[in-house]
């Protein structure tokens, strides 16, 4: 079906520039499901609290939330004592 691109010379020339480097070494070794899982765990991922840490209020929330949780847990323990 490459013939369909005969009338689209400019597009075909651009498509031709998209060459792929085939990772032959990695392709020659099949990873076990366990190794794939470990690799996935170790891969860089997005920070879930990125949006919060970007703004002033969000940053303040991140600082105060653990303190508030600590106070809450302490109060729960005191209530259980009495």
């Amino acid at each position, binding site marked *: 079906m490459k013939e369909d691109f005969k009338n689209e010379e400019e597009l075909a020339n651009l498509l031709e*520039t998209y060459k792929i480097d*085939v990772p032959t070494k990695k*392709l020659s070794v099949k990873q076990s499901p366990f190794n794939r899982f470990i690799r996935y765990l170790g891969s860089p991922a997005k920070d879930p609290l990125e949006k919060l840490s970007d703004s002033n209020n969000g940053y303040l929330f991140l600082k105060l939330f653990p303190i508030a949780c600590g106070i809450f847990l302490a109060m729960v323990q005191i209530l259980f004592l009495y």
Partner: protein
Amino acid sequence: MTLTNEELMQQVQTGNIEALGVLYERLHEPLYCFLFRYTKEEQISIDTVHDAFEILQKKHQQYNASLGTVKSFLFQIAYRHLINKLNRRKRWQTLLPFLVPIPKKALQTDDKLMIQQAIAKLPDKQRAVILLAYYEDLPLEEIALILSIPTGTVKSRLHKAIQVLKIELKEAFQHERGF
């Protein structure tokens, strides 16, 4: 005398596993290239190539030479497997967005980056068609078999993909030249 892929597949079906090794040597690179151009992710493409050949080994008896070539059978297996993987990942992404790995970005020339981005922006269905039509130079019928769609749909998606790419690349050129 070099055996064709179909003859090798016949040997696999009669129990000659070495023939599958020869098929792997011939077809793993074009398969990887298609998957990588589709996903732009190296690791998922590598995993899918391996899985596809594993599935081919298990389901070799399902291959029927009258329905299509070995290449289209393999690409069909790989494409379906990849789509299932990507759909599964999308479901996880909606639940836990930060669990999706960030793909590595390689340094590239401007033209290659432009065409790569233009292809990546295409809708999934159009992208698959144009990759198989141009880079694999597959006929209409084989593309239809791989993607499990009618040949008319292949034609219309290819036509749309070409139009979209032309517009996208024209805009990219104009942006680069400061128009």
